[in-house]
């Protein structure tokens, strides 16, 4: 039982990925008011960047569309994009949250016609494709962006070109004068659903990710396989744009490793199984080798694992590769010991995909808010801040379906804090 009546019954959700959206909707659909803060210009987070989910291989756009509809129709949900938490004061039932908004330079009446993008010439790296491709400095984050509004990259501001872009908008929706602003929110409970970042593969120096173009990470593989990705859904070798014939999927790249991430990220095994499925769908004769320490396909995911393993063109090699060398033709050569046969191998490939793990965004970024975390940086319950909860990958490495369960649990806890 609460000692006193909460001053505010609004619930704040930090992060607009699948966990944040689910938390917010679960809260809103019980009748409580909820505010979503999202750092990026659009909701959807990492899920929007995926090509498909395992194990059913359905498209995440489908689930996101349903959720965006639910947000649109629910009067209890308020969304602030390009916003971060600058400070939290107060206690359970009575928090004052200072929000910092970075400028989008595009006003809400943007119709997403795309005229600004057509005249913009400056190219910036596309974070949606993990830097695999470029985009114009006036852009729509992706086709399913929510809110459906263009964004002007801050690099464009102050250049001569910015005026052209502004003039191109026939709705006069571009405001180049927009400045960073802060405002306060009064809320009763806060749910952190800040998600994750892929582990920086350049830090795994023996795998030469920085030197070999054909060594990519699993998140980049998702973009290569996605229709709205840099290659329009065709998986091609980044070095020469050709079809890969021999592909290696390297598990635990920087995971379960005391030099990198000491924990298991839980999703990478199945994500690689899914990548094997992508490759086999696109290329009938492609050969896929999966290098693994042990495959962690928990509970119902075992069936998907069996399906992939029984494919005659997929070879399972029980080994954590020691090194990826640069071959004579500049191709990646995976070297190590097969621990079942004790054979020391060095195999050349057209494409190597590193299954990198998930790192909690909260601990990766300089945060102005001090929350209690476990040894790995995931947010854990804090007795002193008992109105603050965590959901999804901010709380621990989870796949999408488990994140949604975690988000629903967090919604329930948050409601109990403001009741």
């Amino acid at each position, binding site marked *: 039982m609460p000692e006193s009546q909460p001053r505010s019954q609004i619930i704040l959700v930090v992060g607009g990925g699948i966990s944040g959206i689910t938390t917010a909707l679960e809260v809103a659909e019980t009748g409580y008011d909820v505010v979503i803060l999202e750092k990026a210009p659009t909701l959807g987070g990492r899920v929007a960047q995926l090509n498909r989910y395992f194990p059913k291989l359905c498209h995440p756009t489908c689930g996101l569309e349903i959720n965006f509809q639910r947000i649109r129709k629910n009067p209890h949900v308020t969304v602030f994009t390009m916003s971060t938490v600058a400070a939290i004061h107060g206690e359970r039932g009575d928090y004052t949250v200072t929000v910092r908004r970075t400028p989008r330079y595009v006003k809400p009446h943007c119709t997403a016609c795309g005229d600004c993008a057509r005249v913009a010439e400056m190219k910036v790296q596309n974070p949606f494709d993990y830097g695999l491709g470029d985009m114009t400095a006036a852009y729509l984050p992706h086709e399913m962006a929510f809110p459906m509004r263009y964004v002007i990259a801050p690099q464009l501001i102050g250049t001569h070109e910015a005026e052209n872009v502004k003039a191109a908008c026939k709705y006069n929706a571009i405001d180049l004068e927009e400045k960073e602003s802060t405002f306060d929110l009064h809320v009763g409970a806060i749910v952190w659903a800040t998600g994750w970042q892929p582990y920086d593969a350049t830090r795994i120096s023996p795998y030469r990710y920085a030197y070999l173009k054909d060594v990519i990470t699993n998140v980049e593989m998702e973009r290569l396989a996605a229709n709205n990705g840099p290659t329009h859904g065709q998986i091609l070798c980044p070095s020469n744009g050709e079809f890969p014939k021999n592909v290696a999927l390297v598990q635990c790249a920087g995971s379960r490793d005391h030099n990198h991430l000491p924990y298991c990220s839980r999703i990478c095994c199945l994500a690689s199984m899914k990548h094997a499925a992508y490759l086999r769908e696109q290329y009938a004769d492609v050969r896929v080798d999966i290098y693994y320490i042990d495959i962690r396909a928990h509970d119902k995911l075992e069936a998907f694992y069996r399906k992939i393993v029984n494919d005659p063109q997929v070879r399972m090699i029980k080994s954590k590769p*020691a090194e990826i060398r640069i071959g004579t033709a500049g191709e990646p050569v995976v070297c190590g*010991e097969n621990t079942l046969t004790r054979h020391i191998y060095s195999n050349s490939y057209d494409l190597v995909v590193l299954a990198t793990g998930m790192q909690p965004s909260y601990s990766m970024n300089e945060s102005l808010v001090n929350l209690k975390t476990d040894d790995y940086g995931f947010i854990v319950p804090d007795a002193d801040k008992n109105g603050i909860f965590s959901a999804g990958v901010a709380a621990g490495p989870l796949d999408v379906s488990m994140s949604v369960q975690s988000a629903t649990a967090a919604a329930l806890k948050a409601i109990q804090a403001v009741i």
Partner: protein
Amino acid sequence: MTYISPRSTRKYDLSFARWVHRHINGGDRLAMCMQCGVCSGSCPLGTTMDNGPRKTFMMIRAGMKDDVLQSDTLWNCVSCYNCVVRCPRDVPVAYILHELATVAVREGYVQAKRSATNKFVKGFTWSYKTFGRTDERLVSMFYYFQDGLASGFKKLLAFRHIALGFLKVGRLPFGMPHSLRHRRELRKILAAAAAIEAQPAKGGR
């Protein structure tokens, strides 16, 4: 370290695994080994070793004392430390192999005595104990002639091209070996070190 590891009575004897866990520096980390194969895969001599570090560790955990201490894996390590740096479980791979090599010699395993590395190390130790420095010429001679004159000359002949090459570029000096000025002090230090080593270890790191 005066410990002699437990005498094995059968092929698989876990008392040896426990002994390594307790008395070898870093042996306790072996419990963390997940058999990923990075050590053996990183090893520049991985293809020439009979077992390689990963399998050796599994054999230790299975208590295969004789097989471990007779293995050439202990002697083929070139101390590049790739395995130590890359091990995802912080197992000090190379250090454990070195210490096991010492154990194999101390317990009189023939394979250890016959090992070329062991013979070379003997020459090396003799040189620094006598002169306080290692003199490459004397170390090589010590190494070559350990098995008798005939085999010594045979080895010398086999390496003559290298020796001549060194001579040509002035890397093979003549004259007396370099020597430490205070050899008596060095001997005291070595004696003190031996005394420390002879004390019963507390086990573990």
